[in-house]
């Protein structure tokens, strides 16, 4: 049987990372990509910009046209892989055929979570927001219907970007968040307050500590919504943006170990030799805790894919661990949040500065004189330096006092680390 040397299920950041990782070592063998979406690889986070009209479809591709040809990639687009046959080392696809492989990467990403218990959840005008096709559906809906207002359920990254996009289309938008703050995974209350103010100024209503309980229908279409305390929200469309779960269905029932996502080692390999997973579907080691955790962010996805690709092609590269982090521009307010920002338990030290007027907010969370988390709102230019300190687990006791000062920069760091960063780490001497 003619086995495919490299088979990749998925066509987004992790898949591109894998292609590029493979191609660094193996420029000859064919790579096969199977994607259920019919599109050339595109930038998933750009969908909110597309919806908002800030970018056009021509700018959607994540890699240029001709990318597959240039990289000798056989792209099977619009084809859904349904199951991994571990014993036969083959993937079954929707038309019933199978693709035998030598090396497999599962990079199927995540599935948007839709609550099942919401009354009226079957109405027209309810959307999730993770794919290009979601944008097209929403655009079509907005064009065909008189949508004056919308409800976004979920105040995380996707929720905020979608509410911002809807707002940009002239739709009055409301966002509800079950937690007590926006971006609850990475923001603290203060950051959330500042973000909320920015949303307010953009005419976006925010309700925290609540969620939608019922969707009203009129002629099968969304006609409003009721949130927990009984308040009604006028809306003609609802967007569910309460998170994604790893798209592990393809390995369900196989010997491949999963928890929330597919468990991988630091080579991004599953418990089955030659089968790898990367991206939002994978549950890889967390840099800070050392535990395995699914962190659905693009930088991690690409890096995991790249590590997997390298190892699939016979290389030796390990993943240093993922770091939960987010950069998001909320209606013109730049924010960056990294790692543990709302510490729970003892042993943490929190430093922060706040200027609500600017607004400017900087906060770092330390544990054992190492930074484990940080939030930057307003001024973010030097945030990456802190990310580096977190990643490199640098003892900051000698310069703790200046971490939050206005002129914080590399110059504030110990000379040795600074030189390592400037002339060493950056260029990997």
């Amino acid at each position, binding site marked *: 049987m003619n086995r495919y040397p490299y088979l990749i299920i998925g066509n987004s*950041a992790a898949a591109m*990372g894998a292609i590029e990782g493979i191609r660094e070592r193996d420029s000859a063998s064919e790579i096969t990509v199977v994607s259920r979406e019919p599109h050339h690889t595109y*930038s*998933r*986070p*750009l969908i909110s*910009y597309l919806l908002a009209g*800030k*970018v056009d479809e021509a*700018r959607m*591709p*994540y*890699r*240029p046209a001709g990318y597959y040809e240039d990289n000798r990639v056989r792209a099977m687009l619009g084809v859904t892989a349904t199951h991994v046959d571990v014993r036969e080392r083959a993937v079954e696809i929707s038309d019933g055929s199978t693709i035998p492989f030598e090396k497999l990467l599962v990079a199927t990403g995540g599935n948007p979570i839709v609550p099942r218990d919401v009354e009226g959840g079957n109405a027209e005008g309810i959307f999730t927001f993770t794919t290009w096709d979601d944008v097209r559906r929403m655009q079509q809906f907005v064009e065909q219907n008189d949508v004056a207002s919308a409800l976004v359920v979920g105040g995380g990254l996707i929720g905020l970007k979608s509410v911002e996009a809807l707002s940009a289309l002239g739709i009055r938008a409301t966002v509800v968040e079950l937690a007590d703050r926006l971006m609850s995974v990475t923001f603290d209350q203060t950051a959330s307050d500042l973000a909320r103010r920015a949303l307010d100024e953009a005419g976006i209503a925010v309700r925290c500590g609540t969620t939608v309980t019922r969707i009203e229908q009129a002629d099968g279409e969304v006609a409003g919504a009721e949130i927990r305390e009984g308040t009604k929200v006028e809306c003609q469309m609802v967007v569910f943006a309460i998170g994604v779960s790893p798209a592990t269905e393809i390995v369900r029932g196989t010997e491949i170990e999963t928890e929330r996502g597919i468990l991988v080692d630091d080579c991004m390999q599953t418990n089955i030799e030659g089968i790898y997973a990367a991206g939002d579907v994978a549950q890889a080691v967390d840099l800070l805790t050392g535990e395995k955790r699914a962190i659905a962010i*693009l*930088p991690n996805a*690409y*890096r995991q894919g*790249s590590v997997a690709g390298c190892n699939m092609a016979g290389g030796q590269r390990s993943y240093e661990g993922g770091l939960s*982090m*987010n*950069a*998001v*521009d909320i209606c*013109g307010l*730049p924010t*960056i949040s*990294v790692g543990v920002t709302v510490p729970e338990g003892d042993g943490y030290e929190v430093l922060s500065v706040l200027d609500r007027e600017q607004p400017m907010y900087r906060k770092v969370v330390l544990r054992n004189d190492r930074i484990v988390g940080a939030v930057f709102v307003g001024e*973010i*230019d*030097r*945030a*990456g*330096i802190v*990310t*580096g*300190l977190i*990643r*490199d687990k640098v003892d900051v006791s000698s310069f703790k006092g200046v971490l939050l000062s206005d*002129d914080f*920069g*590399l*110059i*504030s760091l110990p*000379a040795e680390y*600074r*030189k390592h*960063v*400037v*002339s060493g*780490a*950056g*260029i*990997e*001497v």
Partner: protein
Amino acid sequence: MKRVVAREEFCIGCRLCEIHCLVQHSKSKKIIKAFREERDSIVPGIHVEEKGYVSFALQCRHCTDARCIEACMTGAMHRDPETGAVLCDADKCVGCWMCIMVCFVGAIQIGADKHVASKCDLCMGAETPACVANCPNEAIVYEDSDE
């Protein structure tokens, strides 16, 4: 590839690198005109950090293992296949600031228009970047530093 390497022991904090970077990236490329008309619309790709008598000029390291490229969701941040420089395509950048978040050197800034990231472009393949050419003390040098 050739990279700009900062030598902090010789940086005199004059900031001529910043000034000439701005001029180089201005429309007129004439210093007085650039400062009169474009000073607020250009963020120099090089930035002098100074504390006490220590100072150095900082700019993108054009890392081999560039996290900004990995983190870029639009593909705007890319490596020039010819020069190896890490460049940000302003037409593609949407200002998500992922690159700023992952750059542990702190060498990427929010551009003057607040919408796209701004960084050193090594003067787009110039034989000598403007900052290096105009450093009076050779505190930044452009040299081959392939690992």
